[in-house]
């Protein structure tokens, strides 16, 4: 009953001083809105895409750079080796049987001929990869499966389609066993992945941390057979490297492959590190790897941090947003104190008429919680607006956008229910933090001191 009464008093108090109330709600809303936008973006960036394998999945990078340090002064992290490995180094590492799974891969493209009237041939982005890709990254399969390792070396004319590509080519039907023509060559579909949006796209950050997964997967052996060029990033670390042909790419020190291993135990990991170091030391005998050994075999969080997917900037943004929220809370506290003291004579009167200190504190706390709630809701609206604006500014829809890409753009700038719960929690806490002292202060004073002010 008292709560209902206190709520009525809170609403009356808002009507009595609407400007001050609007200022308080605005302050809380601004703080919550800014905090929610940055936390949501941080949450999206820092999402652990494969947390269940974080202690056993490792990216491998080797420092095959020459002693020429030209241009490194412009690099953010010159101490890190290149983020990809060369063709020949990848193949050398692939010989190790220490990892439970190992994947060398890169991004390429080919023309698909749908073989149907009305649909023109179109380019498709391909992930050229060794067989373990699907099991190592736990890629969800809609139909069929990936290929065996033997299909990499032969190589077998098999492919795995993404759900989106399967929808496009086969109208969503189970196409396992059907044939797809890629630049004049026939490939048999052996698997279709379900919707898969690793966020960030940790296994290949070269195109962008939030790119969508590829539409077609092909055994690695086809890279040399079809001389599949890279549709990703190529970085030749030796000066004057000639990369005119695919064969040049495979023979020079140009990094273009991502290399990942899955190693379940620390002892095996140590053995693999030793294996990699031995390999690069051996290569030094052949004039390669001139710098001190600087190989990195790192887990997913470290990998993302090395590439600034979740870097100091992201954390700084969150800290600044939270600092802004604190400023808003302090501002609200000041406004709340001014408001309560402004109505102190009425509070004194209520005390004289029998309200206890607890009842007065409770009455004012109800008011601050209501202010906090309204501010929180307004803050959520602000956050949604801010995220919408970010999406509009950063994502330009294109005619060939896949549903995956659109979903990714949405997810990057949409609060999920956890964010909403967090926002409500923060707004309540903000209201209570901002109002606790004023409520306590007004409740603590002797009633006579306020009546004198009448």
């Amino acid at each position, binding site marked *: 009953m008292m709560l209902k009464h206190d709520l009525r008093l809170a609403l*009356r108090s808002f009507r009595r001083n609407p400007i001050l109330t609007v200022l308080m709600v605005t302050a809380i809303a601004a703080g919550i809105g800014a905090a929610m936008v940055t936390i949501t973006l941080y949450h999206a960036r820092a999402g652990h895409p494969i947390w269940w394998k974080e202690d056993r999945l490792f990216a491998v990078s080797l420092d095959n750079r020459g002693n020429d340090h030209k241009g490194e002064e412009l690099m953010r992290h010159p101490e890190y080796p290149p983020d990809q490995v060369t063709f020949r180094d990848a193949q050398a590492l692939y010989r190790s049987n220490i990892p439970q799974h190992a994947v060398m891969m890169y991004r390429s493209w080919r023309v698909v001929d749908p073989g149907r009237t009305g649909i023109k041939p179109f380019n498709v982005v391909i992930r050229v990869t060794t067989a373990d890709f699907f099991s190592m990254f736990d890629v969800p399969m809609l139909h069929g499966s990936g290929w065996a390792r033997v299909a990499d070396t032969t190589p077998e004319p098999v492919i795995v389609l993404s759900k989106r590509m399967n929808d496009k080519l086969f109208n969503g039907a189970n196409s396992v066993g059907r044939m797809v023509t890629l630049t004049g060559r026939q490939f048999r579909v052996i698997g279709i992945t379900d919707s898969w949006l690793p966020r960030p796209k940790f296994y290949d950050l070269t195109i962008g941390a939030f790119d969508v997964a590829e539409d077609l997967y092909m055994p690695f052996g086809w890279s040399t057979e079809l001389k599949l060029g890279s549709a990703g990033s190529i970085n030749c670390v030796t000066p004057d490297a000639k990369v005119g042909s695919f064969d040049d790419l495979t023979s020079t020190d140009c990094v273009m492959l991502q290399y990942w291993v899955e190693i379940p135990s620390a002892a095996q990991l140590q053995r693999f590190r030793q294996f990699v170091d031995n390999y690069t030391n051996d290569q030094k005998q052949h004039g390669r790897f001139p710098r001190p050994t600087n190989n990195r075999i790192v887990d997913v969080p470290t990998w993302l941090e090395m590439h600034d997917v979740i870097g100091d900037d992201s954390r700084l943004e969150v800290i600044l947003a939270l600092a802004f929220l604190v400023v808003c809370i302090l501002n609200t506290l000041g406004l709340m104190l001014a408001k309560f003291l402004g109505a102190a004579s009425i509070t004194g009167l*209520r*005390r004289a*008429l029998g*309200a*206890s200190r*607890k009842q007065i504190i409770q009455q004012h706390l109800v008011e601050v919680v209501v202010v906090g709630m309204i501010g929180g809701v307004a803050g959520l609206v602000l956050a949604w607006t801010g995220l919408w604006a970010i999406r509009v500014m950063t994502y330009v829809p294109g005619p060939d956008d896949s549903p995956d890409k659109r979903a990714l753009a949405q997810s990057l700038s949409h609060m999920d229910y956890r964010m909403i719960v967090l926002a409500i929690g923060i707004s309540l806490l903000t209201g209570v933090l901002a109002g606790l002292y004023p409520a306590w202060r007004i409740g603590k004073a*002797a009633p*006579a001191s306020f009546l004198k002010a009448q």
Partner: protein
Amino acid sequence: MKSVSKVFRTDVVETRALKSFSLEIEPHEFVAITGPSGSGKTTFLNVAGLLEEFTSGTYLLDGKDVSRLKDDDRSRIRNEKIGFIFQSFNLIPDLNIYDNVEVPLHYRGFSGPERRKRVTAALERVGLASRMKHIPSQLSGGQQQRVAIARALAGEPRVILADEPTGNLDTTMSGQIMELLEEINAGGTTILMVTHNPDLALRAHRHIEIVDGELAASRARQPAGAIAATVAAPPVVPAAAEERP
């Protein structure tokens, strides 16, 4: 009250607002309190109304020692046993008359129907039942003070403390308010009224005077004998004060 002292302290000054103040009020008494400005009248009323704690001494209210109670108990006693009437009415400006009278009843925890019954009865008693939906600024000063009286009456207190209830009113309205207070007192409610108006003070059963935080005089209205008047403790009332009209 027995030997009640109230000292206000700041970093640089100490003010003794009440000095070993002793006074006994009988049930159903109507006591007028006068004294020069700053003499301690309002402090006495605040202490009597449990609005302020006092520094030393003993205070029995309705037979119960209320000298050192916790805030909850003081608030409850204030709500149940004491009604306040102020010089400037102290109505809440954005509440209508009904809601103003209802305020203390909320803190008593009465149900809605019980509150409604008491508010209506109190407003009928002061002749303002037809103005329930008006806000204070729509009423005259005298009417506002009657609303304040209704608010004090609604809780059916044992004692009403009135701090210059007619101070802001003209003579006619002052007379009406005084008649209302006398009527309430006749109904059995004890009334302590601070006033600067000697004519009104003379209408009380007893007239006490406070000077420099001490009880300077206490005399009963003539004909004497009907009402007991007691100075419970020193200081002894000065002869000069006794001779005042």
